[in-house]
């Protein structure tokens, strides 16, 4: 049905305990609109990485804080928006991970943002008032 928009929202506490629930929430939407298994897997991973980064970096593991997640789609795109009120992420401070160097230095992390960019077609970071907004779009 061209032009029909479907939007669903979920609000969860910022805790890794909810990771599986968040992945299943976006996967259910993607399945409902008939995406293939590869796309569904990529969307599950992208939302996992974005939500994990909010838990660890924006809220520094403070589970009482909330994260709002919206998933929507029309005939051409699927988009996922995550909103939090924690510390903002500056995308200009991000550089592509040099894996070999990280292993030598035993530094973990930094891989999530890289993966999200590989898995989704567009990624935008914005701050609206006190709210950080990550919007990830996949072309269908």
């Amino acid at each position: 049905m061209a032009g029909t928009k479907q939007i669903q929202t979920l609000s969860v506490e910022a805790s890794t305990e909810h990771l599986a629930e968040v992945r299943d929430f976006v996967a259910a939407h993607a399945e409902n609109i008939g995406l293939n298994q590869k796309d569904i897997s990529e969307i599950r991973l992208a939302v996992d990485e974005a939500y994990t980064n909010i838990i660890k970096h924006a809220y520094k593991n403070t589970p009482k804080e909330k994260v709002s997640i919206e998933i929507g789609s029309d005939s051409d795109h699927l988009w996922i928006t995550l909103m939090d009120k924690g510390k903002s992420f500056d995308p200009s401070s991000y550089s592509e991970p040099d894996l070999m160097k990280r292993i030598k230095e035993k530094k973990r992390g930094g891989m999530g943002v890289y993966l999200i960019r590989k898995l989704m077609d567009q990624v935008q970071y914005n701050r609206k008032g006190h709210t950080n907004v990550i919007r990830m779009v996949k072309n269908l």
Partner: protein
Amino acid sequence: MKNFSIATRQKNNVTILDISGELDAHTASQLENALKSLIDDESYSIIVNCSSLDYIASAGLGVFMAYIEDVRSLGGDIKLTNMNDRVYNVFDLLGFPTLYDILEDEKEALTSFEN
């Protein structure tokens, strides 16, 4: 509920970890503890069999990154086997196959430890 589990087997001098379920930022600490205790026990020849691993996020890959150099510097290795395509794809996106031994089959990994 944690949808992740680890079982341990021993074949000759090699320890095999069978990991199942979903490995993410919530469950990664279980794998980390298992690897830590192997290193503490001086078991440095390790195979992680991923045949029942349904999903991995970067937090899971981070655990391997954190321990692989330690184990190699002690004369051992962590070899990964039997991944499904979706799991392998995540390792591949991050360039892991050039750095780690990722093998089709557990037998291959056992053989390569013998050589």
